């Protein structure tokens, strides 16, 4: 499941169920990002009004967390695990290979192919690394070939 880019809902309709919830901002942010693919300026403004925060306070929270983004990125997000267990399985070489194959560096998006490359620290798949997550699918004993195949088959 790639991050959805569905524009049929108004942000406020999505935010409302979380306003009265204790600590509802995090689930509200997740919901907005699932629907729009990122948290837009308009979303930030509506969140601030709904939660009675300043926009700066909303941005403060968004920017703390790696998962949240304020700009659209690729339809397919490749997260390559660079934590210790995958280091022992040559994830640095895999990163180099996949970077050159896709012509992407970390945190970069190729808008033609719709692919974003990101790092992640541990996917909990440590006994059969190196591991890569493509959208919500984890790939074990990952190779450049496996990653490309997966994107061509399921991602397209």
């Amino acid at each position: 499941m790639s991050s959805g880019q569905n524009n049929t809902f108004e942000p406020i309709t999505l935010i409302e169920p979380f306003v009265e919830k204790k600590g509802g901002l995090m689930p509200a942010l997740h919901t907005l990002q699932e629907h729009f693919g990122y948290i837009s300026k308009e979303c930030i403004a509506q969140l601030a009004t709904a939660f009675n925060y300043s926009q700066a306070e909303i941005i403060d929270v968004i920017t703390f967390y790696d998962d949240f983004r304020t700009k659209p990125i690729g339809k397919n997000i490749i997260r390559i695990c660079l934590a210790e267990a995958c280091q022992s399985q040559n994830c640095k070489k895999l990163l180099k290979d996949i970077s050159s194959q896709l012509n992407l560096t970390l945190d970069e998006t190729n808008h033609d192919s719709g692919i974003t490359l990101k790092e992640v620290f541990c996917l909990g798949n440590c006994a059969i690394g190196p591991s890569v997550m493509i959208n919500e699918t984890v790939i074990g004993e990952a190779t450049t070939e496996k990653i490309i195949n997966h994107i061509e088959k399921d991602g397209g």
Partner: protein
Amino acid sequence: MSNIIKIYIPNETSANSVGANMIYKNISNLVKDESVEIIRNGSWGAYWLEPFIEIEKEGVRRGASYRNTNLLHLKTIEDFFLDFEKKNPFDINEIDFIKNQNRIVFSRIGQQDPLDIDYYRKTKGYESLSTALEIGHQETIDRIKSSGLTGRGGAAFPTGIKMQTVFDQDVSTKYLACNADEGDGGTFSDRLIMESDPFSLIEGMTIAAYAVGASKGYIYLRSEYPLAKDFLNDAIDIALKNNYLGKNIQNTDFNFEIELRIGAGSYVCGEETAMMESIEGRRGLVRSKPPLPAIKGLFGKPTLINNVVTLATIPALLSQQHSEFSNIGSGKSIGTMPFQLCGNIKNGGLIETRFDITLKEMIENYGSGTKSNRPLHAIQIGGPLGIYLSSNMLNTSLTIESLDKLKGSIGHGGIIVFDDSVDMSEQAKFAMEFCVKESCGKCTPCRIGSVRGVEIIERLQENKASKEDAILLEDLCETLESTSLCAMGGMTPNPIHSIINYFPNELIEK
């Protein structure tokens, strides 16, 4: 009924990562009638075998590994059965890796569909909740105290004492927060519980909440675990429908609900005070303690915070398995510990065993050596804040006490194996880089010191003999240790110290 042939195909992150879902699709296409039943079980945690496919026929259950196997050429289910026999299937309970373990907390993983509540009940599930509701709050806490259970998240604090503190607060609203932000590299025991035996966590949470008087619980789950999220959501629904959650649980006046909260890619949110900030909807900045969360925690109320495995252990402590658990081990290292053996290892996976086994037994007997067949060089124990041991330290026993003596920690039980191609100076640098990335930014030594740490180590990589940089690194580590609020800054020096001490001349020339 007994003529039905059952095919078990795991639905679990690691199994799926090497093709279990694909095999499920292939085999389901071949099943044409009701003589064959496919069960999506959990994983046995013997990961080198995944996807491990089993067939149960006339009461005999055997399996075989389908790693890198394509089944597209098979035309009928009989073709699959023939193919299966050619793989010399075996009973997984007969292999040493499983047989030598002492699975008490992980006794159900791999057996059946993790969401099959009838199977859960048949295997003593929810008996312990009934026991707790019968014996009352204090007696439940007393039994957990006397069991010797300590927190399995990393800090190894006595679980019963924490529960007593929350119970003793004379406040009407209390919370339970399950820490499922399993962020340590090289760990997956929480994930395995959530995906392959989620009811044990939910029952454990329900008992703990009842014991301390909490009526609302949160599970703070990391976003990197989407399959665990699905399993937990389904298990919570099923528990609700069966009156194991919700109002008047099992016809008592006890009410308890669980809300699942998803993290957003921050390691430090696994630190309990940062986790509370995140649940409350803020940046995950650590809080200073005191006040302890048990006294003033979530939303200012007394909060019991435990990790997934700790909570999932509680049901076993209130059943007949109690004495079995508590009779194992000594000192702080009581009961079983789910070690997660991984990295460059042939037979990696989940190993629930007594603490006092040696690293040698772990790596050679369970793991069968490095996956690359190259010489073993380093073993990191206890996550990114854990120490590296060298290949001549294999007689180290894996108890909480023995790791303490080495200035390390058993942490969450991750054991990562490296062969001789590892560059230990890179591992030291990574410890600081990880701190740069994941520091919440509250304490200056952690926020800025880690950046300086990377720079110093880069200079040492150019000149290992630089006395000046060696002293500077030592000073920096001391400052991090003594002036950071939480373990992120306070323990980042641990892997670095261990590399200096146990790997002479690999980072610093003496």
